[in-house]
């Protein structure tokens, strides 16, 4: 009833082409951002920030980056964890090796380094595709894992192999409380999400989608595959690299290469499958789902087991988590290949037409 676009006439091209053409959507998104920026810090406690909100924000940023590559450009990548690692370690090196390096600059430079590595490992995509490419990106994953474990220069010769950063601050404001960390990540996410949304509906986004849908046909109509594929790799790994730097700096504080292992790559891939391939919104849904599910299972499974008189230990929960993840992936691929984002848009469509079915 409230969600109608009656009477909203578009009289300029500008208003016809905006990101959210319906006024209610615009209002809703502004309210959401305002709530995230003001409401959440007032309501949530420290545990919620640490366990849910900060991981959710950073992982949705990474999922967003991956979605550009896999969902929009159709180049499947199993090396996301590696690009996150490059971002994190590069940012770390900029921080410790250059005196007075501003945090923001270090994070973005980390992203730039990830871009370079991403483009490097994206070059094979010009020759190979599909499954072969997926395996080629695994090369990035294993090589990077190894490099940060064995080449001591990257970890600044730290004895334990783990690196840590402390006393983060931006423009003189220290980022040490969960509140500050949360807002810092939120700012990054909002900026990058806006940029990504506008990128995928610009001409370069359309090129990516043409390549995804059929690369030979796209090349025939004059889209340069080299440029389109490598730019997708570059943009994607930049965002993923920044997310990796945030994950290391803000969420973990101190980390080892294991934080960016192949499991992380799979986890991010699952996020965008469940959330929705080729959808900015889907990245958020997927990240929320995957961050919250283990916590939810941890709470619910022992209670359920208690009901039927079985004690469920933590190992069992971990295995159940694997099984539920696996089953959900298959379920989504069969029932709704476009993920949660598709369900969301179906819901919106129904609301617009309500009470009529068509």
């Amino acid at each position: 009833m409230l969600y109608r676009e009656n009477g909203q006439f578009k009289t300029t091209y500008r208003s016809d082409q905006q990101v959210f053409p319906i006024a209610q959507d615009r209002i809703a998104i502004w309210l959401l951002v305002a709530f995230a920026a003001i409401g959440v810090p007032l309501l949530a406690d420290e545990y919620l920030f640490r366990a849910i909100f900060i991981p959710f924000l950073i992982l949705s940023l990474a999922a967003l980056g991956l979605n550009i590559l896999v969902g929009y450009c159709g180049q499947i990548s199993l090396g996301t964890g590696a690009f996150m690692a490059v971002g994190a370690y590069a940012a770390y090196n900029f921080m410790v090796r250059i005196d007075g390096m501003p945090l923001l600059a270090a994070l973005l430079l980390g992203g730039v380094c990830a871009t370079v590595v991403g483009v490097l490992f994206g070059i094979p995509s010009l020759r190979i595709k599909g499954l072969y490419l997926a395996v080629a990106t695994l090369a990035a994953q294993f090589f990077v894992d190894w490099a940060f474990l064995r080449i001591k220069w990257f970890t600044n010769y730290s004895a334990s192999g783990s690196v840590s950063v402390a006393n983060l601050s931006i423009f003189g404001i220290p980022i040490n409380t969960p509140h500050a960390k949360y807002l810092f990540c939120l700012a990054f996410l909002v900026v990058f999400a806006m940029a990504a949304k506008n990128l995928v509906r610009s001409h370069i986004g359309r090129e990516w989608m043409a390549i995804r849908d059929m690369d030979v046909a796209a090349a025939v109509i004059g889209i340069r595959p080299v440029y389109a594929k490598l730019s997708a790799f570059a943009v994607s790994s930049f965002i993923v690299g920044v997310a990796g730097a945030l994950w290391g700096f803000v969420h973990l504080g101190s980390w080892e290469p294991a934080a960016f292992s192949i499991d992380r790559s799979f986890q991010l891939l699952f996020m965008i499958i469940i959330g929705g391939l080729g959808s900015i919104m889907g990245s958020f849904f997927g990240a929320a789902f995957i961050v919250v599910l283990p916590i939810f299972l941890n709470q619910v499974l022992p209670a359920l087991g208690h009901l039927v008189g079985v004690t469920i230990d933590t190992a069992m929960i971990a295995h159940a988590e694997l099984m539920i993840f696996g089953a959900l992936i298959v379920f989504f691929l069969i029932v709704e290949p476009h993920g949660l984002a598709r369900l969301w848009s179906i819901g919106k469509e129904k609301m617009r037409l309500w009470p009529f079915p068509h």
Partner: protein
Amino acid sequence: MGSFLETLLGGLMTGMLYSLVALGFVLIYKASGVFNFAQGAMVLSAALAMARFSEWIPEWLGFDNKVLANVLAFCLAMVMMVMAAWLIERLVLSKLVNQEGITLLMATLGIAYFMDGSGQTLFGSDIYKIDVGLPKDPIFLFENVFQGGILVNKEDLYAAAIAAALVALLSLFFQKTATGRALRAVADDHQAAQSIGIPLNRIWVIVWSVAGFVALVAGVIWGSKLGVQFSLSLVALKALPVVILGGLTSVPGAIIGGLIIGVGEKLSEVYIGSQIGGGIEIWFGYVLVLFVLLVRPQGLFGEKIIDRV
């Protein structure tokens, strides 16, 4: 020279074991166009089943004969793999017919997670032993030719022999039997195969069962070598570059790819790895594959990929 040959031989043996896992990938890819990421999880589940059944069966039936227990456990594990194959066909593949390769790949990733979880829930997640009586003592070859001879692990030798026998068996099965011909027909063209009366569903169950059998053999061999635990499913990640190097559609390719990567890994670890920090085994195969793919996008022995609009 002696140490070089020893490394070479060790590499060949390891390579043979990689091929064993890689074979599972190739079989399923050939017959259904699905890149089966769950092969590693299948190896783990099969090995877990084998290890636990060989413990449990003597308890259940109250006898104490290791050979009989092993045989029964093997059969029971095989039954389990066939059931898994049937379930996968029923619940997943039949619902995803005609989808793109990427979708199917992700579905098998889901299956992999599910099998990892369910296998460990059913059979426990500690480290178990499989003892099928492979001899463990090393032997020395060419002692009169080189100083000290070449150290060879007898267990590896047996494993390589079993792998070679399995490959020969599977090639015969594919080339000579009616079912094998049907499998190849399905691989060539689903629709054409169906139109001449080959039942797709049954073929898929058969292929997945055969892949389950290969996984079981690989699981038993790897399991008796390394112990059965979660990390066994990571063997599949070592076998991935092997398949891609050999070409996804070629059984001989899987073998030769395995040998190349096995040897390359060991030699590079000894001769290059020592200079740049060690542990380069982890990525050597992948990086090698990356360069080969740049030259031959379909792998060494794969069928040429033709793009049509």
